[in-house]
C-alpha cells in the first residue's frame, strides 16, 4: 500500500484526488478529536454520577457539567499545541529515524523571536495600532522564519556530520544542542533587556467571547467563554495542518520527502537530493515549531528560556502515542494527550474532594494512561493503521 501512495509520474492529479489526499488524513484526525472528546466526557460524567453521594456540599454532576465545555476548549488548545510541536519530531524521525531532542528549544526560540518582535514594535509605538489578524500573521511568519532557519543550521552543524555514526551519537548531540540553546537564549535575553522572563507584548485582543451563560443557582451564572487568543491558536493550527498535509501528500516535494522516508538509498538512486530533502524536513518541522512558539507566547503572555522543555517532552510523547514517524498520528497523539491533561487537571480535585490537587497530578495520571495505551498498542494509536512513514 505504500507503493500506491506514490503515483506514476505521468498521471495528472485531479482536484478530487488532491482534496482527498489532503483531507483524508485530516478526517481521521477529526474523528479522533470528536471520539476522544466524547469518550472522556462520558467517562467523566459517569464518574461524577457514581461519586454523587460522596459530596454533600456541592452537586458533583452539576459542577462537572458546568465546566465541561470550558475543559473541552482547554483540551483542544493544549492538544493543538502538542500536535504542532509533535509534527517536528515525527517528520524528522520519519526521514532520519532519529529523535531531535532539541526540537523543544526550537519551539522556545520561536516564542522568543515573537517576544522580541513584539517588544520592537512596542518600543516604536506601532504595536497597539496594529490590527490583530495582521499582527498574528506577521508574528507567526517571523517565528517560523527564525525557527526554521535555526533548525536547518542545527541539522547542518550538529547532525549531518554524524549521519553515519551509531544511533546514540546524534541523540547526544541533540541533547547538547538543546542545553546550548537554552543557555544561549538566556544570555541573549538578559543582555538584550528582554529579561529572563520576557513579556510577550501583543496588541489588545479584546475581551473574551461569551458563548453562553450557564446558570448554577438563581443568583449566579457561570460564563462560558472562548478567549480570542485560544481561537487564534486553533484556527492557525488547523490552517498549518491543512498546509502540511497538502505539501506532503499532494506535491512533488512531498513525494520526495515520503520517498526519502521510505528508503533513503533508493530515493537517492532515483535522482532525489537526499541531503536537500532532509534539510527541507528540518525547515518544515522547525517552522511549525516556531509558529507554535509564537502562538503559545501570544496565549500565555510570558516566555522564559526553559519554556520549551516540558511541551517538547510532551509533544515527543504525543508523537510516540500517535505512532512515531506518522504525520496524522502526531496530530492525533497531541490532541488525545491535550484532552487527557485538561480533563485530569480540571476534574481530579473536584472528584476527590480536594484530596488530590488536579494541577499537580495531571502529568502523572495522563502519562499513566499513556503507558496503558502503549502496553496494549505499542506501535501507537495510528502506528499500524498506516504503515507508511511520513
Amino acid at each position: 500500500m505504500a507503493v500506491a501512495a506514490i503515483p506514476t509520474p505521468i498521471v495528472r492529479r485531479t482536484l478530487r484526488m488532491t482534496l482527498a489526499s489532503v483531507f483524508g488524513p485530516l478526517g481521521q484526525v477529526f474523528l479522533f478529536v470528536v471520539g476522544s472528546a466524547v469518550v472522556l466526557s462520558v467517562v467523566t460524567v459517569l464518574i461524577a454520577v457514581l461519586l454523587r453521594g460522596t459530596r454533600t456540599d456541592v452537586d458533583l454532576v452539576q459542577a462537572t457539567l458546568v465546566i465541561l465545555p470550558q475543559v473541552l476548549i482547554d483540551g483542544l488548545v493544549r492538544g493543538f499545541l502538542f500536535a504542532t510541536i509533535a509534527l517536528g519530531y515525527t517528520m524528522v524521525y520519519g526521514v532520519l529515524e532519529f529523535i531531535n531532542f532539541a526540537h523543544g528549544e526550537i519551539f522556545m526560540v520561536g516564542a522568543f523571536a515573537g517576544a522580541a518582535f513584539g517588544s520592537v514594535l512596542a518600543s516604536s509605538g506601532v504595536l497597539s495600532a496594529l490590527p490583530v489578524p495582521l499582527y498574528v500573521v506577521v508574528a507567526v511568519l517571523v517565528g517560523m522564519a527564525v525557527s526554521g532557519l535555526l533548525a536547518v543550521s542545527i541539522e547542518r552543524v550538529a547532525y549531518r556530520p554524524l549521519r553515519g555514526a551509531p544511533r546514540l551519537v546524534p541523540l547526544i548531540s541533540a541533547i547538547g544542542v538543546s542545553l546550548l540553546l537554552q543557555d544561549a537564549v538566556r544570555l541573549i535575553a538578559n543582555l538584550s533587556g528582554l529579561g529572563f522572563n520576557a513579556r510577550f507584548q501583543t496588541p489588545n485582543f479584546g475581551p473574551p467571547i461569551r458563548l453562553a451563560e450557564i446558570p448554577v443557582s438563581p443568583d449566579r451564572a457561570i460564563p462560558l467563554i472562548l478567549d480570542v487568543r485560544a481561537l487564534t491558536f486553533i484556527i492557525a493550527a488547523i490552517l498549518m495542518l491543512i498546509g502540511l498535509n497538502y505539501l506532503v501528500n499532494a506535491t512533488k516535494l512531498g513525494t520526495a520527502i515520503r520517498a526519502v522516508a521510505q528508503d533513503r538509498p533508493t530515493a537517492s538512486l532515483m535522482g532525489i537530493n537526499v541531503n536537500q530533502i532532509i534539510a527541507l524536513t528540518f525547515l518544515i518541522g522547525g517552522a511549525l515549531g516556531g509558529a507554535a512558539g509564537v502562538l503559545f507566547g501570544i496565549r500565555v503572555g510570558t516566555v522564559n528560556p526553559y519554556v520549551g522543555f516540558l511541551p517538547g517532552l510532551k509533544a515527543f510523547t504525543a508523537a510516540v502515542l500517535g505512532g512515531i514517524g506518522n504525520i496524522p498520528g502526531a496530530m492525533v497523539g497531541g490532541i488525545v494527550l491535550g484532552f487527557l491533561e485538561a480533563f485530569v487537571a480540571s476534574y481530579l480535585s473536584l472528584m476527590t474532594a480536594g484530596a488530590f490537587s488536579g494541577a499537580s497530578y495531571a502529568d502523572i495520571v495522563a502519562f499513566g494512561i499513556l503507558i496503558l495505551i502503549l502496553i496494549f498498542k505499542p506501535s501507537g494509536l495510528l502506528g499500524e493503521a498506516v504503515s507508511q512513514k511520513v
Partner: protein
Amino acid sequence: MKKQQLAFHIALGATLAALLAACAQPTPAPQQPEPTQPPAAEPTQPPAAEPTQPPAAEPTQPPAAGKGKIKIATQSPLSGGQAALGVGIRNGAELGLADMGKMLTDLGFEVELAPFDDQAKPEVGAANAKNIASDPDILCVVGHLNSGVALASLPTYRDVSLAMVSPANTNPKITESGYPNAFRVVGRDDVQGAVGEEFARTEMGVKSVYIIHDKTDYGQGVAEFFRQQAEKNGLQVLGFEGTEEKSNFESILTPILAANPDLIYFGGIYDQAAPLFRQARDRGITAKFLGPDGLDSPELLKLAGDAVKGMYYTSVAAPVSQFPDAAKFAEDYKAKYNEDAPPFSAQAYDAMGICIRAIKDAAEKNGGNKPTREQVLQAIREGGEYKGITGTYKFNAKGDPEKAVYFVLQVSEEDGDPAVVWNKNAVVKKLEIPAP
C-alpha cells in the same frame, strides 16, 4: 580526597606565609593603624589555643601578614527567573561590606565578599553550601532568598557551626527546626499568612477564597497558614491547588472560573504569579488577588501589567523608601548599580552589618586574632540589639527577631516604567508583631 588536598595546600600556604612574615617583618601590612599592637606572637598556633575547635576540621589560620583574610558569603539566585531579587541581596550585602567592612580592616583583616548563585534551587544551594563550608575564611553567610533553598543548605552550615543571617526567608521552619546557626531579620509566614487573611476578611470584605501555591517550602507554607486562618475565621476556602507550571495556567483557571471566588490567594514568587494573574483576567475572572512578599518585585508589574494594578500584597519588607534610615542606602545603591534598590536589598545590608559586627566582637574577644566560626556564632547570639537601616533587631533563642514588622501594600495604579512605579506602591497597613 579533594578536600584533603585542599587542606594540605592551605596548610602549606599558611606555613609559607608565616615564614615569610617571620623573615621579612617590615613588609607593608595593609593599613595597619595601630602599630603598637603586638604582632601575632606565635607563628605556629598550638592547637591548644582553641579548645572548642574539633581536631583537623580546619587548618591553622595564617596568623601574620595582616592577620589574614575574612570572607563573608552571600547565597541567592543570581541567574534565572528570580534573579531580580537575588541580585538585590548580593548588591545590598556588597554595599554593606563596603560601608562597614572598615570595622574589620581596622583590626588588620582583609575582607572580601564571596557571592554564590543558588539559582533558587535547593540542590544548587546545598552544593554551594559544601563549597562555603570547606573555605575556612568564610565566617558568616548572608542568604538565601528562598526558604526551601535555605532549608537544604542549613544542615551543612550547622555541621561547621557557620552562622546564616537571612534577609528574606520567612518560612517558620528556618528557625523552628532547631538550627542554632539560623537567624533572620524578617518576619515569619505563619504571622504573614494570618495578617493577609485578616486583611482580606476585614478590609477587602471577601467571603470566599481560592488558594494556589507553588509547591515550595515557602509558597505552600504561607498558603497553608492562610488556609488555616481562613478556615478558623469562617472565610470559605473553595480550593487549594499547587502547581509548578510557570507559563500556562489554563487548567488551573477553569475550576476557578466555576468556583467563582471573591479572592485568589497565590503563595509563591512573582515569576509564576504574573502570568497566572494575567491569564485569569484574560479569561474574565474578576476575583481580587492577594499574595505574600514573594510578589514584591517590579517584575510582577512588568509581566502582568494592568492585571495587578491596585492589587494588595503582604510583605515583611516594605519598599526601601519606607525606611527613613535607608535613604542614604537607596542613593548609594542607585549610584552604584544604576537601578532602584529592590526589596530585600536593604535587609541584606543589615544582615551583612550583623555579620560584620559579630566578627568584630568575636575577634576582639579572641585577642584581636581571627575568630573561629563558633566564636562568630556565639557573638551573634550574644550581640544584643543591632540598629540597622531597616529597624532594630534583637534575636530570640530561636533566631527570630523579637519583634518583626509586617506590611500590607497596594500596587500603584500609575502608568510608566515598572521599576519606578513599583516604588510608589502604598503602604496600607503596618503592624509590629512579636515572634510567636
